[in-house]
């Protein structure tokens, strides 16, 4: 199987979906001739033309809102928000409109739209090019929020998102774009939305996480294996609505749980995961449910040492896991 990068998997999925279904089109800032500021849509403008890869005006609420209208007409827009930080001007369109369209029209209208956005830190992006925005939208029924961790998942989940008949927020970790490589079949496949995935089996401690943090967990697990600690890793993949069964199963399995996110801790996705566990398998627990996240500061600073201080570090993951194992 070819080994490609996270972002290549993305472009491949877009390309395949566009050639498969003429209703799929791309819209966003600089997605056309420039191929996106991260080059996620590279080559697609040349291949599909300016009608299907649309450089929009600099206006996120319009990008989302126009996308909604196009989706209502029967298209499958894939809208890019240049950075997830910049999707807030579109919050009203996403939360009040896209998410509620099917419900409020009693299943008459629907919004088969995917909104892609790079998120996450560790790239020297400062306050507004590093944020995790998923928690803001993770209380909005009608939305699905997908966050892949590997190139394989990127391709399968993006295709599933595009084919979904409901709106999907698809967050891509910008540091993973070129850092993370992996095997990706050339052929067409989809992965189920709403399903978490066991990325490593283990018996002593469970990590539940998503995005880049999956790789931090995998690294830590590798190291701890040498120490005789066996780590179980569940990658949520869809962070809203959550895969409750998988969470309960993974938590019950070891009874010692680390919930890991690079988002600020209070009010993060991991709060809900903790609540699910505490509600459903409390008596299977052998240790308090530990959460590891970023400090509760507004966002990741630009200066190197401050960025470092903000971002969760692989060693922290390792330490927390060791502590739990020894609990």
């Amino acid at each position, binding site marked *: 199987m070819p080994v490609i990068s996270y972002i290549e998997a993305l472009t491949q999925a877009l390309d395949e979906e566009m050639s498969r279904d003429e209703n799929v089109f791309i819209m966003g800032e600089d997605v056309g001739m420039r191929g996106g500021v991260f080059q996620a849509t590279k080559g697609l403008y040349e291949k599909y033309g300016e009608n299907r890869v649309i450089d929009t005006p600099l206006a996120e609420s319009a990008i989302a809102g126009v996308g909604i209208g196009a989706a*209502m*007409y029967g298209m499958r827009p894939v809208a890019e928000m240049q950075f997830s930080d910049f999707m807030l001007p579109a919050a009203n369109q996403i939360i009040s409109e896209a998410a509620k369209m099917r419900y409020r029209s*009693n299943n008459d209208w*629907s919004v088969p739209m995917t909104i892609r956005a790079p998120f996450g830190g560790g790239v020297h992006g400062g306050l507004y090019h590093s944020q995790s925005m998923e928690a803001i939208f993770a209380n909005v029924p009608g939305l699905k929020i997908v966050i892949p961790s590997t190139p394989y998942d990127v391709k399968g989940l993006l295709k599933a998102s595009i084919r*979904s008949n409901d709106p999907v927020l698809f967050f891509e970790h910008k540091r993973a774009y070129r850092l993370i490589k992996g095997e990706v079949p050339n052929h067409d496949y989809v992965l189920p939305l709403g399903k978490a995935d066991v990325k490593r089996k283990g018996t002593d401690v469970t990590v539940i996480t998503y995005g880049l943090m999956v790789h931090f967990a995998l690294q830590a697990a590798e190291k701890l294996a040498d120490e005789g600690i066996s780590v179980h890793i569940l990658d949520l993949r869809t962070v809203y609505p959550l895969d409750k069964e998988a969470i309960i199963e993974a938590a019950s399995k070891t009874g010692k749980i680390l919930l890991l996110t690079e988002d600020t801790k209070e009010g993060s996705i991991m709060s809900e995961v903790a609540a699910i566990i505490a509600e459903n398998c409390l008596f299977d627990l052998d240790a308090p449910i530990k959460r590891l996240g970023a400090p509760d500061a507004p966002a990741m600073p630009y200066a190197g040492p401050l960025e470092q201080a903000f971002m969760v570090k692989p060693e922290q993951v390792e330490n927390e896991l060791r502590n739990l194992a020894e609990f």
Partner: protein
Amino acid sequence: MIKDKSETTIETNRHQELGLTDQDVLDIYLNMLKARRVDERLWLLNRAGKIPFVVSGQGQEAAQVGAAFALNRDKDYVAPYYRDYGFVLAWGMTIKELMLNNFAKAEDPNSAGRQMPGHFSSKKLRILSHSSPVTTQNPHAVGIALAAKLKGDDIVSFVTFGEGSSNQGDFHEAANFAAVQKLPVVFMCENNHYAISVSLKHQLACEKISDRAIGYGMPGKTFDGNDPLAAYAAVKEASDRAHRGEGPTLLEANCYRLMPHTSDDNDMTYRTKKEVDEAKKNDGVLTFANYLRAVGVLTEDREKKMEEQVRKEIDEATDYAEKAPFDDADTVLRYVYEEEN
């Protein structure tokens, strides 16, 4: 029955000039009348405690119905806002459906009682689902036009909104997007001079809403919102431009909101009865009836029949809607996401 002093004024036949038949203008009038009488009934039902809430379109029917008649009612997509009773009636929604909507019953085609009244929606009729946060429909209408362009469908996308709402960011972003892409969109602002209690001069400082058009590179036009023929002419021209691929137009219907904002409002806390009475003199339902009488299209007999027909229809619809069942309580969790049958 509608009567007015100025009945005897000699009128030129303006509707023929616009290519409208006598039957057309009678239909226009009938829809205006339906909207007005439905609206009046809703207030009565509300005062009688039968429906909890009314949002009213009185004073805006002329612009709404005139606009609907200028569009292709078999093909075009529309995003009417919450006062557009006249528009949706002319567009094909029935009085019965509007009553089901106001009683929030399961059979309501707009939302099966999930949304407040006046939040129109019907895929069958190509009416986009409207929500309460104002102006969100503007980008949707633009998206419809974009999709139609991509698919090569020759349609027009029509959207309405209030003048207060024209100050929302979504108005600006949608108009700009439509103009850049030269999309077949007709934006029609129903300027009724109030946004709840806030009068025009506290909403905006431009002379006309249509002055905003040039900032998007599209034509703008203000017309008499009490005159359905003016609305027809303006929307027809805009729609023709759209079909010719010349892009969007911003229209402004100059109207007046005759009733309080909603049944929860008391408009006498911020405007005078005198002002409202003054505006009532230009009420499109009255003045258009006068016109039709003056040009000999509306006879006393016809008018009486119309009123009777409308009253009967409203009576039956009210009765039906009142008795119709609510949706089951357990549907509260239906259609959050697509369901696999």
